[in-house]
């Protein structure tokens, strides 16, 4: 089972520019979470802070009792072996073939025989659909393939916590759908805690158990997906609707004048009533059910009376239909 990640009061600045402050959230063990946010709100910085690559000025990130912000470097290096991080553009080693790239963590951290390394690596290469390309250099393949190779490398050590930085950027909608399914399948197989940072609405709507959003230097909200999907918070509603009307402007935040002008102008008709909640993806046929689902149901039902009414109604609807088991979404990697 994955490991819980507890973030408390995290604040990060570069020089005098504050990126976000007082971010507090808990990634529940084994569940899939998504962090949304407009471009440039420090989502990647947040990921890098979780894993200790960047050091926030305040706050803690607790993983198995190790604080990734302040603990000694040696403990942090040890704890990082529990992580798999998929970088935005793969961050593959340019001088190594895909095979060597993916084998790198195994060769560094295990004493496995070369034949066994080969078996594991080829297995992962197959999972991400790169069979046949293992001998190529990262410079010789497309961005989408690099991304998938990066994911394969993040997976070889069977991580307990998987972090994905914009798994969809540079991918077409079909590949994005495949990646979404792949992530859910991985969660079913590994039962790892996952955090996906993205601004892709399809991934946000179909993949996560929990969702959060970063905007204006703070965490707008974080909780079960229904909370965010039904939220009437202007920034969240604007973002999920993909509209221009709202507090999010081209350069992060609109000024008061622009907002006032907008209020007097004609507004595009908004669909009335609550947004429709798309059912979550299910693991591909043949895979074990996600163990996170039962854990989450208990956790969320326990939270129920503290949630806003719209979210509560949505959750009750979801669980009333028997956990909502829709037909497996199009595209199962298997």
């Amino acid at each position, binding site marked *: 089972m994955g490991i819980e990640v507890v973030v408390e009061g995290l604040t990060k600045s570069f020089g005098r520019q504050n990126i976000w402050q007082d971010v507090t959230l808990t990634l529940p063990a084994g569940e899939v979470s998504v962090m949304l946010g407009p471009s440039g709100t420090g989502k990647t910085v947040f990921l*890098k802070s979780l*894993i200790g*690559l960047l050091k926030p000025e305040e706050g803690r990130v607790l993983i198995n009792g190790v604080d990734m912000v302040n603990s000694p470097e040696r403990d942090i*290096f*040890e704890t*990082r*072996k529990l*992580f798999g*991080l998929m*970088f935005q*553009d793969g*961050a*593959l*080693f*340019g001088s190594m073939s895909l095979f060597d790239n993916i084998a*790198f*963590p195994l060769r*560094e*951290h295990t004493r496995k025989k070369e034949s066994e390394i080969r078996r594991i690596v080829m297995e992962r290469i197959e999972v991400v659909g790169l069979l046949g390309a293992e001998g190529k250099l990262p410079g010789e393949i497309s961005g989408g393939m690099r991304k998938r190779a*990066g994911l394969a*490398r993040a997976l070889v*050590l069977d991580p307990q916590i998987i972090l994905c930085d914009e798994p969809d950027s540079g991918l077409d909608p079909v590949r994005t759908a495949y990646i979404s399914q792949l992530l859910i399948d991985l969660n079913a197989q590994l039962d790892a805690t996952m955090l996906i940072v993205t601004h892709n609405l399809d991934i946000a709507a179909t993949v996560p158990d929990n969702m959060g959003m970063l905007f204006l230097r703070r965490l707008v909200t974080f909780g079960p997906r229904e909370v965010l999907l039904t939220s009437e918070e202007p920034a969240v509603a604007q973002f999920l609707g993909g509209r221009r009307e709202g507090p999010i402007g081209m350069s992060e935040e609109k000024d008061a004048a622009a907002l006032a002008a907008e209020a007097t102008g004609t507004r595009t008709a908004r669909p009335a009533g609550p947004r429709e909640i798309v059912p979550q993806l299910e693991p591909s046929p043949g895979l074990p059910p996600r163990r996170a689902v039962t854990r989450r149901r208990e956790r969320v039902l326990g939270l129920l009376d503290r949630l806003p009414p719209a979210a509560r109604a949505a959750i009750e609807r979801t669980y009333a239909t028997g956990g909502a088991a829709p037909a497996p979404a199009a595209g199962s990697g298997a």
Partner: protein
Amino acid sequence: MILGALRQTGRLFALAVEVGRAIFKRPFQFREFIEQFWFIASVTILPGALVSIPFGAVIALQVGSLTQQLGAQSFTGGASVLAVVQQASPLIVALLIAGAGGSAICADLGSRAIREELDAMRVMGVSPVQRLVVPRVLAAMGVAVLLNGLVSVVGILGGYFFNVFLQDGTPGAYLSSFSALAQLPDLYISELKALVFGFIAGIVAAYRGLNPRGGPKGVGDAVNQSVVITFLLLFFVNMVMTGGYLQLVPPKGG
């Protein structure tokens, strides 16, 4: 401004200490070490030899002309050899290691840094210092020591040639003054200098390479700075080491 400079210096020293500690940490990256050693050697050997011939000649001619005026022509050999072994050779080595080896190390690490390869390594629980920097610094040190021997020999041969054939010096006087003035510690300090210069060149290149500012242009700037900083440091350290040596080791001729 001053604080910034001090901070950089502090970080440079911190990296030097970290590298010093990581050298003894297992597993040692033997393959990387061999590859880097071969690479640095291959880019420095030929220029090293080519630079040292005229350099040895210049020193032989200059010292020869000077000693001729002073009437101490029989000591030309010893004087020019000492100048080559103690000063010229380690500095030529330093310039080559910093210019050819260090710049390549800095560019390599810098481009890895901006492509997030180093972050990826850290994320996988592998220390870039141990995995990449230590083999490079050791390779720079090893090549520097060996190259120093080569440059000394070629430089002395060049000096000998010019002294004997162009300035009508006698081979016997050249060699006997050599053994009259030169002693083994001269060779030791020369090799020690080369070792230290190799270390400094490797550390500075790695330091600037690990921390490039901004994108690809930052890498270019980092390479440029690493070479300049290394030169400044090397000439300063050379002065200190030479001064210390002259104080500590009694001259043979005295």
